[in-house]
Structure formats: structure tokens, C-alpha cells
């Protein structure tokens, strides 16, 4: 008997022509994690809101069909029916906490107060949940000073403590670093094992890997359902984007879907040469995203610039030393990915590149000129900086006007501005949205608008802060092709990222930061190779999935993605074949 039964659910938002959900049915049983995959706008969030009982009571929409949690239809219930039965966690860690509680313990008490739990019972319930979720050590901390991963665990705890047996999560790991994502994945598995029902919308492999079942949505309809490995592989044609790297490799190795996220099983299967040839064909057919064009043709004028950072030290008020002597030279046309845990100094370093922060010691030079005396707004034409949160900069009522804001600030001629805006819209694939209000777009698309706004200024150096955060795989590919195009035109791209596969695919240098210094600066094939695994672990990082599988197979080198690993294997097979033929030739001649 499922705890959650979604039965023929249709949802249409006011003013929208197409339904957000179209005859969706899904069931979640106690002890199960069901993940919901699909591209941005496919209806994942809507399904989450519906199961959490927020549709149409809080978010207005016309709803038909049923969503049963236990025996209550939550689309027709009041808040007092659902509070304490089902809870939802969203992607922004900071926004979910009440933000008024001085410590984690009182944050957890907030839900209990609302349910009128007697004061004397609160501490015991809070302690039990904190212990179970591994956050007891955070009890006296101010929630707003925690890391994103810790805040997300507190947010989950604050729902669980209410006695909720159905937990809904809408992309809980979208804004977390790899370590934080692993923490959440482990936590969800534990909660399900305790007998709760978990429904989670997410595209990170770590969370898909701990799910029991996966449903894939496309344009509001369920296009496939089953074990995560199988459901993702089956939905390639309908969704128009390939499955995660591990699933591609699992298909290539003929690994059963249940084991698709088990690196060891995938590595073992791929090592068996016999099975490989038969399945390579299947894997190739999943590579539809390769067809989406890169925007290289759009990028023209090249004004190369060399960035030089020497002995950079930065202290924040209060004495925290965020950078402790950083040296980095970036030649024109190079691509550098800066990786490391939250708090390792990545963003602090990036903010020195365009003068947003001033060094306490050392200097930053652009083409040999120290930039410390220059205004941020004067550097903007040469050094473009795209921030993590697009909502800190969008304010125009039309996308094209928003994108033209930077070029207008540079004082360019209107005809040139128009051309730059068109180029930027083309690169980001926003041609169809030029008259749209940016705030009518989903956050991943808003991020592309913010990116387009900086591309339109044609800076020599492009600095991106977490450009793929909250993007789905299609959005990540899009950002990747922009990086490739920008670098191909002789410009520099520097990105701060938690997405190791994105870093390995599109960047020539991987710069690893830890506690305010650079601890590794190598091309991805070396940075992510087996010999660096221990060092990466100390920085809370792990190589991209394909490299991890390669290292389990004992291969030297670190392939960036599934294609690179499969090509590596094919080349090795060919060499082996050539050797064995050569050997047999020798045998016959002698």
C-alpha cells in the first residue's frame, strides 16, 4: 500500500496555454526513494508542490486528479491536514530556514511550536532527529552561518522533526558542492530506510544513485519509469538529452540497470572486453546532445589579455585570511577552472580579478598593468564577471534590454549594441525570448540571461562563478559550448565550479584551492588522475565519474566523460588486436 499515490494528476497554471502536468501517476511506498528526473520546465517542481499539498492551496493552479498522502487527498485539504504529514525542502538552503532563530535547536523547534507540541516534549524530539541526521554538533550554531550542505541538512531535519513520514525535496542538491550532495544522498537513504517515503526531484547522479525508482518527465508527461539506470536510458529519445555519464558507461558495459550507478560494477563490466563491442553501439545512440551546435561562429573581435596574479593575500574584516599568497598567470585564450570546497577562497580570488576586492598584499595585473587603481566599472569592458545569482542583477522588463545594459554602460553606438545583443542571444540560445520579461523565465534560463548580458560586452577575460549551478545537462552543455567558443576566439575563460565533469570537458587547466592557497594546477587529464585522488579528497572533491571508473579499471589518465573513456578503451582494444595479430604473424613465419 503506497504512502503517496498520485493518480491522473493534471495541473495548469493561470495564464498558461500548456498544462504543467498532464495525466501524471506515480506511487511512493514507505521505505522508498522515488526520484523525478527531466529537463528544466518538465514539471518536476509542480509535482513536488502538489505532493506537498501546496497546490492549489498556496500556489494557484487548476488541478484535477488526486494526490493521496495516506488517505488524505492533499489537493483538497487544509494546512492543518498536511502539516506534520508531508513536508517539502527546496533548493535554496538559506531561504527555507525561518531566519529568525539564533541556533539550530530553536530552528527545529519552530515546526513543533506550530504543531502545538508540548514544550516538555520538544527537546527529546529535537535531540533524536539531530542524532539520527548527524547534525547534533550543529545544535548551538547560528543557522545562517552554516555551509550550504549543513543548512540543507538542517532544513530536512526541521521537516523530519515534525513527525513527517512523507518527505518531498525539490532539487535539494542543486546549489551544493560535491561533498554536500553526498551528505544529502546518504541522509535521504537513511530516512527511507527508517520507513519514510521520499520523493525527490534531482538530476545529480549521487541522488539518482540512492533512489529505488525514477520517473522521467518531459513536457508534463511521464515518459519513462523504472530503476533509475533503466528509466534514464529509456527516456533519451523523449527527453532529448543523454543520461548521466555512469548510465552511459553502464549501458556500454552491459551492466544491468540496478547496478548502473555502481562504479565498481561498471568498471568490472567495461574491463571485460567481450561485452564491450556489443554495447558500444547502444551507448553511441544516446549521444544526441552532441548534435546541438556550438556558437563558435558568433564570437569575433579578439583582444587578448594576460592576467597575472602575484602573492595575493586577502583578509576579511574580523581577520579571516581568505587568500594566503596566490600566484597565477593566465595567458590569452586559456581556460582555467578553479575548484575547491566552499570557503577555500575561490570567489574571493575571482573578485580580485575585476577589482571588486582589493588585495591586502600582492597584486593583480592585466597586460602588465596593475589594476588596483582602476574602477570596477572601467574594467568591465575587459573583464566580464558573471555572478552566481542572476537575481542580483536583472531589472529590465525585456531580455534584450537586459542584455544590452552592459554595452550601453560602455557607451557604444546603438547599432553596435544591437549587434552585440543579437550575438549574445544567439550564443545563449535566447533568440526566442528577446521580448520576454526575465522574471517569467525559470532560474536556469535567468542565469543564461545574466551570462548573455556579460557576453554582450565582449570582455577579453570572462569570469564565471558557478555557471552550471542549477542547470540541467542540456543547460550545462550550452554553457560548455560557450566556453569552448570563447576560448577558440583567443579569449580567456576562468570559471569557479563544483561540476568536475564540466571542468574536465571544457577547461585546459584545473586549479585546485584549499584554505586560501593553490594546491594543484594541472591539465584535467593529470589533475583528475588516480595519483591525485588523495589530494582531491582533502579538498572535498572527487574526479568526474568517467575518471573514477577509469581509475578503478587501473587505466592511466583521466577521461573527462563517457565518450572519452569509451574512445580510450576502443583505442586500447585496437592496439591489443594489432599486437595479437602481429604476434600470430610472427608465429607463422618462424
Amino acid at each position: 500500500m503506497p504512502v503517496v499515490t498520485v493518480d491522473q494528476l493534471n495541473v495548469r497554471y493561470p495564464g498558461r496555454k500548456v498544462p504543467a502536468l498532464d495525466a501524471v501517476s506515480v506511487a511512493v511506498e514507505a521505505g522508498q526513494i522515488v526520484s523525478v528526473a527531466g529537463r528544466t520546465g518538465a514539471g518536476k517542481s509542480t509535482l513536488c508542490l502538489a505532493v506537498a499539498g501546496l497546490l492549489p492551496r498556496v500556489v494557484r493552479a487548476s488541478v484535477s486528479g488526486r494526490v493521496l498522502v495516506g488517505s488524505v487527498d492533499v489537493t483538497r485539504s487544509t494546512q492543518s491536514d498536511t502539516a506534520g504529514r508531508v513536508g517539502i525542502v527546496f533548493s535554496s538552503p538559506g531561504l527555507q530556514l525561518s531566519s529568525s532563530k539564533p541556533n539550530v535547536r530553536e530552528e527545529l523547534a519552530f515546526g513543533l511550536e506550530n504543531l502545538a507540541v508540548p514544550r516538555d516534549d520538544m527537546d527529546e524530539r529535537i535531540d533524536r532527529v539531530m542524532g539520527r541526521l548527524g547534525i547534533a554538533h550543529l545544535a548551538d550554531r547560528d543557522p545562517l552561518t552554516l555551509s550550504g550542505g549543513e543548512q540543507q541538512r538542517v532544513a530536512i531535519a526541521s521537516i523530519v522533526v515534525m513527525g513527517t513520514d512523507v518527505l518531498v525535496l525539490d532539487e535539494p542538491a542543486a546549489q551544493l558542492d560535491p561533498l554536500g550532495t553526498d551528505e544529502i544522498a546518504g541522509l535521504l537513504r537513511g530516512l527511507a530506510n527508517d520507513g519514510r517515503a521520499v520523493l525527490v526531484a534531482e538530476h545529480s547522479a549521487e541522488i539518482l544513485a540512492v533512489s529505488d525508482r525514477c520517473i522521467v518527465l518531459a513536457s508534463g508527461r511521464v515518459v519513462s519509469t523504472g530503476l533509475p539506470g533503466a528509466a534514464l536510458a529509456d527516456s533519451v529519445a523523449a527527453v532529448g538529452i543523454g543520461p548521466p555519464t555512469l548510465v552511459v558507461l553502464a549501458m556500454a558495459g552491459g551492466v544491468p540497470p540496478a547496478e548502473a550507478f555502481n562504479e565498481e560494477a561498471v568498471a568490472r563490466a567495461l574491463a571485460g572486453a567481450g561485452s564491450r563491442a556489443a554495447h558500444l553501439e547502444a551507448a553511441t545512440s544516446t549521444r544526441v546532445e552532441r548534435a546541438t551546435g556550438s556558437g563558435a561562429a558568433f564570437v569575433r573581435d579578439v583582444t587578448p589579455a594576460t592576467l597575472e596574479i602575484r602573492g595575493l593575500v586577502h583578509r576579511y574584516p574580523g581577520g579571516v585570511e581568505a587568500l594566503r599568497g596566490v600566484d597565477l598567470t593566465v595567458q590569452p585564450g586559456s581556460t582555467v577552472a578553479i575548484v575547491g570546497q566552499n570557503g577555500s577562497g575561490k570567489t574571493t580570488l575571482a573578485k580580485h580579478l575585476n577589482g571588486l576586492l582589493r588585495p591586502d598584499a600582492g597584486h593583480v595585473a592585466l597586460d602588465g598593468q596593475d589594476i588596483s587603481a582602476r574602477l570596477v566599472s572601467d574594467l568591465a569592458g575587459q573583464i566580464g564577471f558573471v555572478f552566481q545569482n542572476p537575481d542580483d542583477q536583472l531589472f529590465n522588463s525585456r531580455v534584450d534590454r537586459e542584455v544590452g545594459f552592459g554595452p550601453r554602460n560602455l557607451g557604444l553606438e546603438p547599432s553596435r549594441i544591437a549587434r552585440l545583443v543579437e550575438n549574445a542571444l544567439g550564443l545563449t540560445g535566447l533568440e526566442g525570448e528577446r521580448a520576454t520579461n526575465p522574471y517569467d523565465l525559470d532560474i536556469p534560463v535567468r542565469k543564461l540571461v545574466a551570462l548573455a548580458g556579460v557576453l554582450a560586452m565582449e570582455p577579453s577575460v570572462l569570469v564565471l562563478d558557478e555557471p552550471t549551478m542549477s542547470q540541467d545537462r542540456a543547460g550545462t552543455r550550452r554553457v560548455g559550448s560557450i566556453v569552448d567558443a570563447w576560448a577558440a576566439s583567443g579569449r580567456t575563460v576562468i570559471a569557479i565550479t563544483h561540476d568536475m565533469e564540466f571542468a574536465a570537458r571544457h577547461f585546459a587547466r584545473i586549479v585546485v584551492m584549499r584554505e586560501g592557497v593553490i594546491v594543484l594546477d594541472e591539465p584535467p587529464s593529470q589533475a583528475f588522475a588516480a595519483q591525485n585522488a588523495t589530494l582531491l579528497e582533502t579538498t572535498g572533491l572527487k574526479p568526474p565519474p568517467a575518471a573514477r571508473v577509469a581509475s578503478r579499471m587501473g587505466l592511466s589518465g583521466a577521461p573527462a566523460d563517457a565518450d572519452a573513456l569509451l574512445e580510450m578503451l576502443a583505442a586500447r582494444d585496437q592496439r591489443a588486436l594489432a599486437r595479437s595479430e602481429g604476434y600470430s604473424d610472427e608465429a607463422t613465419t618462424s
Partner: protein
Amino acid sequence: MTRRASGYFTAGETWLHRRNPVTKLLAVAWTAVSAFVVPPLALPVLIGMVVVGAASTGLLASVVRSLRIPALLFVSIFLVNAFFYPGAIDRLIAIGPVGLSWEGIAFGLVSAGRILAVFVASILFLFTTLPDDLLEALVDKGASHRLAFVVLSAIQLVPRLQAQSAAILDAQQARGLRVAGSVFARARAVVPLVGPIVLGSLIDVRERTLALEARGFGARRDRTAYRVVEDPPVDRWMRIAIVLSLIAIVVAVLAGWLH
């Protein structure tokens, strides 16, 4: 700047920290009313009281630092009154209808002084009161929980907006926006800086609302409280004293005894 849940609160164990938030809120109200009704000659006494209050908690330095922000307001109130006091007779300098007058200077000083007294009292309240304690104390005194929560959120909005404005300033400068220079350039920068605050806040409100719903906020009428806010007998006596003395001051002013 790191944002904290506790807003402007500075932890401490002083006599003022130990007061019940409602007592302190009444004291702020007392100061606000008194500052505007007492005759100018009593004003220095009032300002002296709040300054001594601040000094007794060791927060005088922080209070003085926080005066940097409204300093411009105090100065402009003083200057406008000093120069534009209507019907001034005792003029020091006269430029047509405008002129510096003794009446204006006196009135300007008094006006700025009244606002200063209220400001310092309010800051002292924020520094020594945990927002959550205020909420529980108000609910305890019969205020609606939802209303108290709205008041609390408003108090906490200020530090949140400060952090957000800093991020927006960075982002727009990085897109070439000049925020310094001529009056024209500054005026042009207003929309790009204010726009994202408003729009971003609306988005935040949506997510916060959904999150509060999920936490069962407002689900029931009967609600329990985790925080226990102390309300010692001395606070009750203090509140009675504050109310009685406020009535006395108002009556005295109305009766003209203080003139």
C-alpha cells in the same frame, strides 16, 4: 558582512539584556513620546538618560558607531531649521528670504535632539533584545502570533537587504555601471540598483512563504513556545512606573505646568 539570524543583537548579560522585551519596548515608546512633548530645556536630561543607559551596558561605543548612518539626517534637520525658520526675527545673516537666525538654530538643535534621543533608545533596544524574545514576549502579552511574526520579519529585513544590496552593487559595477561621479551618473544608477532588490525580494517572499507553510506556520490556533522569556516581578513594576510617569508627563505638559 555575514548575516546573522539575531540581526543587530549583541549578546550580553547586562541589566538591560535581562529586561523583558515588552518592558524595553515600552521604554522606547516612553522616550519617543517624552522627546516630543517635553520642553526644550528638559531635552538634555532625556538625552543624558539614554546615553547613561547605553554606557551602563558597555554598548556606548557601538551606539556611537551606529550614529554614522543617520548623522546626515541630524545635520540636515539642524541646517534646514537654522536657515529656513519661518518668521525669524533675530537674524544673524540674511540672504533674501533665507537667513540664519538664533530662533532657527535653537529650533534646529531641539528638533535634531528629539530625533537623536528616539534613535539612540531604539538602537539600544535592538542591540539588547533578541528578535525571537520580542516575538514570544509579545505573544505572551496577547499579541497575535502572525502579527508578531510580521513585526519580527520587518526588523530582520534590514540586515538582509544590506547584504543583498552589497551583492547587487558588485554585480552591476561588473557590468560597467558607474555608481560614483556626477549627480546624473548617480541618478542613472538608481534603477539598476533598486530594481533587483525589489524583484529579488518578491521571489524570496514566494519561497519563504512556501517554506513557512511546509513548517506548519499558522496551521493551528493553539501554539506552543520553545523559548521561555523571563518576566520577573521587577519588570512588572518597571512597566507600571513607565506608564504612570508617561501619563504624568503628558498631563503636566497639557496642563502647562512645565512651561
